């Protein structure tokens, strides 16, 4: 960009103020404050809505009033400030919450940080609760989130790099990694992908996620969005990169494997057999929530012959008076379930309990009594739903629940063969996926993952236990 002369500050104070206020479109929350410093007029300019008035009082006005030295710079020496000369830089600094100090007969401006520190306290994350382990969660501020990680990883190898995205949003993206564990090529690729974001107006994590993912159209999330610092720290130790977007209370972890979506930080904090049990339980939950409704429909509609006589009669009695095809039954029940879930999420928690009652009593038992849906189908869909809620990461939980729909259709048209073909396609898709160039489901290493976790435990969480 070519800078014309008029864009620089002049030595005329009033003209400077006029230029800056017009540059800021005469916005009403731009306030000025005039003070006298060693017989010269000094003007403070700031956006009333962004800055912390107390900090201006303490860090700018009172040192100037004390007049420790003749120059403004030395009087301000306690707080951090930068020198600006162009009007463009000044308006950007103002918009970001800095205070601008203009002096008479001086063509330089001082920009002083005095951002109001209004932010949410660090609370437990609502979406990833644990019973054992730390109860802190990320907040809507990238630097507090980074400090949560830094406290866990007190090493100079912990590196942070900042990027800014969007000319209007001008939001900060922080890339954190451990220099010794991260793969340099992966890191380079991730930074390259984030560079591409700089022209976009970024507001949501999803935008960053989309830029980071190898296949954004896949139903499976290839970056792990977590609200827990211990999970992020664990992944950093294993060589992943953590990306924060300012004003979003979550970290994006990449590269990740499919298995890490089935793990909770609580597992690693437990005894090995508890760990193994819960991991296996979640594996089972994953398999059940994808295949159970499809299996039930296939058995009911095509392969009732595989059941022994007694079970066969139980099944057939329960579907005897139901007028619908099992596929219709399953689709109806799934839709009802999703409606209930969605309603309870949107409502305030006190009212959400009512939805639970409505779901359990009114829909659950009444729908069976009216013979719209069979007893067994209600049980099957309920197990499917509960299984999918067991998955610790919400994104993956929803994906998995929705992945059962194509299988339901295949099972209703081809029976077990449809399920086999569907699972084959799912399997190939999972094997095909990569997360930042690393295999998403590296099938041969499934067994080795337990070994990895034990070293991980020694490095990270286990060490604290011995101290």
């Amino acid at each position, binding site marked *: 960009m070519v800078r014309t002369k008029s864009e620089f500050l002049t030595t005329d104070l009033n003209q400077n103020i006029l230029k800056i206020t017009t540059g800021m479109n005469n916005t009403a929350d731009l306030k000025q404050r005039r003070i006298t410093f060693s017989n010269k007029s000094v003007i403070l300019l700031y956006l009333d809505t962004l800055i912390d008035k107390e900090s201006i009082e303490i860090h700018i006005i009172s040192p100037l009033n004390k007049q420790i030295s003749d120059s403004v710079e030395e009087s301000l020496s306690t707080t951090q400030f930068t020198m600006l000369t162009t009007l463009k830089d000044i308006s950007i600094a103002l918009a970001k919450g800095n205070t601008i100090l203009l002096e008479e007969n001086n063509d330089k401006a001082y920009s002083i940080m005095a951002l109001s520190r209004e932010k949410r306290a660090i609370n437990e994350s609502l979406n990833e609760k644990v019973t054992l382990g730390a109860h802190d969660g990320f907040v809507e501020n990238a630097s507090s989130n980074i400090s949560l990680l830094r406290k866990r990883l007190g090493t100079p190898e912990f590196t942070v790099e900042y990027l800014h995205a969007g000319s209007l949003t001008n939001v900060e993206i922080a890339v954190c990694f451990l220099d010794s564990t991260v793969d340099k090529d992966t890191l380079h690729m991730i930074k390259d992908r984030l560079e591409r974001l700089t022209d976009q107006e970024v507001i949501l994590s999803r935008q960053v996620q989309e830029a980071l993912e190898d296949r954004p159209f896949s139903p499976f999330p290839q970056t792990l969005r977590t609200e827990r610092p211990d999970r992020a720290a664990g992944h950093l130790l294993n060589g992943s990169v953590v990306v924060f977007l300012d004003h979003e209370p979550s970290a994006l972890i990449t590269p990740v494997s499919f298995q890490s979506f089935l793990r909770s930080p609580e597992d690693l904090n437990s005894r090995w057999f508890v760990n193994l049990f819960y991991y296996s339980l979640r594996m089972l939950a994953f398999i059940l929530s994808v295949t159970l409704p499809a299996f039930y429909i296939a058995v009911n509609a095509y392969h009732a012959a595989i059941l022994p006589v007694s079970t066969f009669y139980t099944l057939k009695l329960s579907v005897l008076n139901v007028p619908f095809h099992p596929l219709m039954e399953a689709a109806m029940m799934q839709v009802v379930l999703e409606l209930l879930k969605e309603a309870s999420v949107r409502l305030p928690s006190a009212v959400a309990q009512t939805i639970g009652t409505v779901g359990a009593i009114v829909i659950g038992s009444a729908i069976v009594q009216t013979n719209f849906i069979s007893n067994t189908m209600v049980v099957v869909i309920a197990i499917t739903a509960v299984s999918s809620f067991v998955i610790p990461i919400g994104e993956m939980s929803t994906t998995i629940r929705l992945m059962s729909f194509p299988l339901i259709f295949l099972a209703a048209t081809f*029976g*077990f063969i449809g399920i086999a073909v569907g699972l084959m396609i799912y399997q*190939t898709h999972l094997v095909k996926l990569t997360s930042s160039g690393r*295999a998403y489901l590296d099938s041969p290493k499934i067994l080795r993952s337990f070994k990895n976790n034990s070293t991980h435990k020694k490095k990270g969480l286990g060490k604290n236990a011995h101290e």
Partner: protein
Amino acid sequence: MLTNKNLFFLIIQAQIGIGILTLPYVLYNKVQQDAWISLLIAGALSQVVIVILVSLSKVSLKENLYELSSKLLGRFLGNALNICYVLYFITYSMLLLFLVSDVIITWILHRTPQWAIILLILLAASYIAKEHLLTISKSFLVFSLLFAFLIVTIFFVYVQDVHFGRLLPFASKEPLQIVSSSPQAFVSLIGFELILFIMPFIKKPAESLKVLSIANGFTLSLYLFLLITCIVYFSADQFKLVNEPLLYMLRGLSFKYIERIDIIFLSFWIIPITTSLVTQLFTASLGVQNLFSIGRSKSVYIIVGVLFILGMLPISNFIKESLSSLMTYLNIIFIFFIPTLLLIIAKLKVYKG
């Protein structure tokens, strides 16, 4: 780049497929209790073929057979041969699709139209075949878990009444008869011809012979196990009636909580059958890519389209049967004779040059 493990699973999945269902029936009705000797001879024969195929593909490690053939035979003859290979793979896939859909219609989906089953299998196969070879081999690895399930299930047969005496008398048939029925067994062992087309993707070409031999050994022992189980399970009279002995054997199994293992088994056996189809599609698409210089995934779609149109045609059982017997000879020509010929030409060229 394929590691040895990847190569192993590619080969066994290419080998094991629909052949397993009918092999015991075909062999037993030719040479009765000596069927397993025929199978062993076929295994030895396939080992010889593997040696030939590997040494042919080692002539030039950076080229697959389609590129190699034009180099050895000249442009015109080479392309003609390549077209023949592509047609062979398409015919083979077609036959495979007919056989599998027939079995499914007979056993499970009695009223589903044949084209629907063919379409379903083709969709799945094309989704896998258009991927990179490494992805294909990784999925094949996971699918191989099915073999473990099969083997465990078959052990339950031994709890029921089996008569090991049915294996006797040992080698009572004419040696010539035993040898002459081994080509039937050889047909169900093929799949290792894949090596001709994937040599450029292999990380350690020097070890490929070893890996292929182990893979062949695995397939052979699985087949032997199944064949011997069938022989000791069925009487000679029963064997004349059961077209798919393996399925009938599983049908006889009964557990407290589950019946009709045959339905479950056949439904999921679709997966190894599809993987054989995937390897055929892969090799055929490499050929189409080579002949018409179009992308490989596009060539997979073209071949799948052709196969689907062929699958819609009303083809009588007579044509299927004659195609099936023709295929036995085609297999031997395309997998044994032509590679041997090419190897001789290659060696002569090296000798001359």
